[in-house]
């Protein structure tokens, strides 16, 4: 069978039986795929040190004939981002990046930009960029790429974005903001967000990723943004992403 080759990031690894592993990869060419690595747990040559979480690899794989599970044939390690294993905060943040990709994407749904964004974020984390801020940048940009950009340019009801209309609340059900004056409109449980956080998140939406590190979030803005993104995830995915809780404990 013809083998496919692609650069890929490992976003999940599970043991399968005594000697195999099932890895979920986010590839440049095919988006998210799951592949079985036969004998990976005992392999001393082919897969040793390579099939670890966060690793960036060049993989060769044979697509599954009857199922969506591919068979991993070879893997060449590009980098394993060693510093992400040696610092608990960075490890938690990188785990959250992988969990976001794992649950926000569908198999075989190619998104080149998301692959670039993921490697950019992992590199940034490995270089020591503030974890929480990087998670916010990644999450906002990921939502944009996947077509779930929240509307932060004004109240979803009256369209205004002005300090006089504060406090603003973020409503996942309305996919955006609702101002203090329109709050009586039925919008489900909202989350209060300050004007400063709204402006910062809008800036993240507008700026190119190479310019994002210039932005600085205050502690309060980080806490608000993370609460907002976590709530948005829970609403749209209908599940809790485990790593959010550990990241919040570190803030």
């Amino acid at each position: 069978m013809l083998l496919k080759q692609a650069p890929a990031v490992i976003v999940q690894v599970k043991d399968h039986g005594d000697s195999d592993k099932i890895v979920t990869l986010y590839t440049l060419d095919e988006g998210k795929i799951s592949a079985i690595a036969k004998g990976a747990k005992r392999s001393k040559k082919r897969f040793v040190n390579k099939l670890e979480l966060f690793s960036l690899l060049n993989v060769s794989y044979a697509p599954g004939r009857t199922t969506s599970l591919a068979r991993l044939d070879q893997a060449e390690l590009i980098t394993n981002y060693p510093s992400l294993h040696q610092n608990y905060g960075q490890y938690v943040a990188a785990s959250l990046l992988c969990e976001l990709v794992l649950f926000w994407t569908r198999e075989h749904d190619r998104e080149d930009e998301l692959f670039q964004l993921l490697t950019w974020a992992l590199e940034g984390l490995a270089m020591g960029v503030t974890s929480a801020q990087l998670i916010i940048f990644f999450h906002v940009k990921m939502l944009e790429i996947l077509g779930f950009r929240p509307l932060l340019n004004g109240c979803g009801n009256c369209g205004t974005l002005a300090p006089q209309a504060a406090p603003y609340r973020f409503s996942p059900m309305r996919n955006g903001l609702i101002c203090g004056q329109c709050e009586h409109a039925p919008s489900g449980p909202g989350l209060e967000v300050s004007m400063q956080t709204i402006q910062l998140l809008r800036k993240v939406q507008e700026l190119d990723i190479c310019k994002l590190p210039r932005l600085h979030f205050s502690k309060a803005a980080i806490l608000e943004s993370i609460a907002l993104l976590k709530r948005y995830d829970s609403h749209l995915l209908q599940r809790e992403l485990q790593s959010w809780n550990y990241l919040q404990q570190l803030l």
Partner: protein
Amino acid sequence: MNVVPPALARLIADLGRLPGIGKKTATRLAIHIMRRPASEAQSLSRSLGELHGAIRLCGKCFAFSETNPCVICSDSGRNRQLVCVVEGPGDLMAIEKTGAFRGTYHILHGALSPMDGIGPDEIKIEALVSRVRKDKVVEVLIATSSTVPGEATAAYLIKRLQEETPAAVTRLACGIPMGMDIKYADELTLSRAIESRKNTCD
């Protein structure tokens, strides 16, 4: 038509739940048990039945044991000031098999894995820190696996133990396996071996 007697089918289903055992192996094992004398099957069933009643966790190191403290923790010949931290009971057995370690153990029962909902509170980290403080442990040897969760757990433990206890914290060396030709070692292992090189005068 079901040709397998219900009692045998139940046994096959039970054996099939064990790790690494598929339906074929479970059937082979069940037929083997049935062919052997009844006393052997009764002995097996007694051992299984008594397992949970007889075995508990050692209150000190959290190893599976019939006594509390376990055989290793109550052995006076062991160095109680030296504690080796491992992820699971299988790791303890592997280290014990070497015969090279004469200290005591601490089993974490897992490794940090935020994606699976395993944080510091879900494994026996708090118990380790208080044990090191209370028992005035001199050295803690971190022997978690060289996987990403194992390394992250080690990093977390090293930081906490250095901040909160006076004990010296060491990490299991990582390098080339015995009998391996250097040119066949992968880059990562080889670079780790170079980093952890040892002064031959020591």
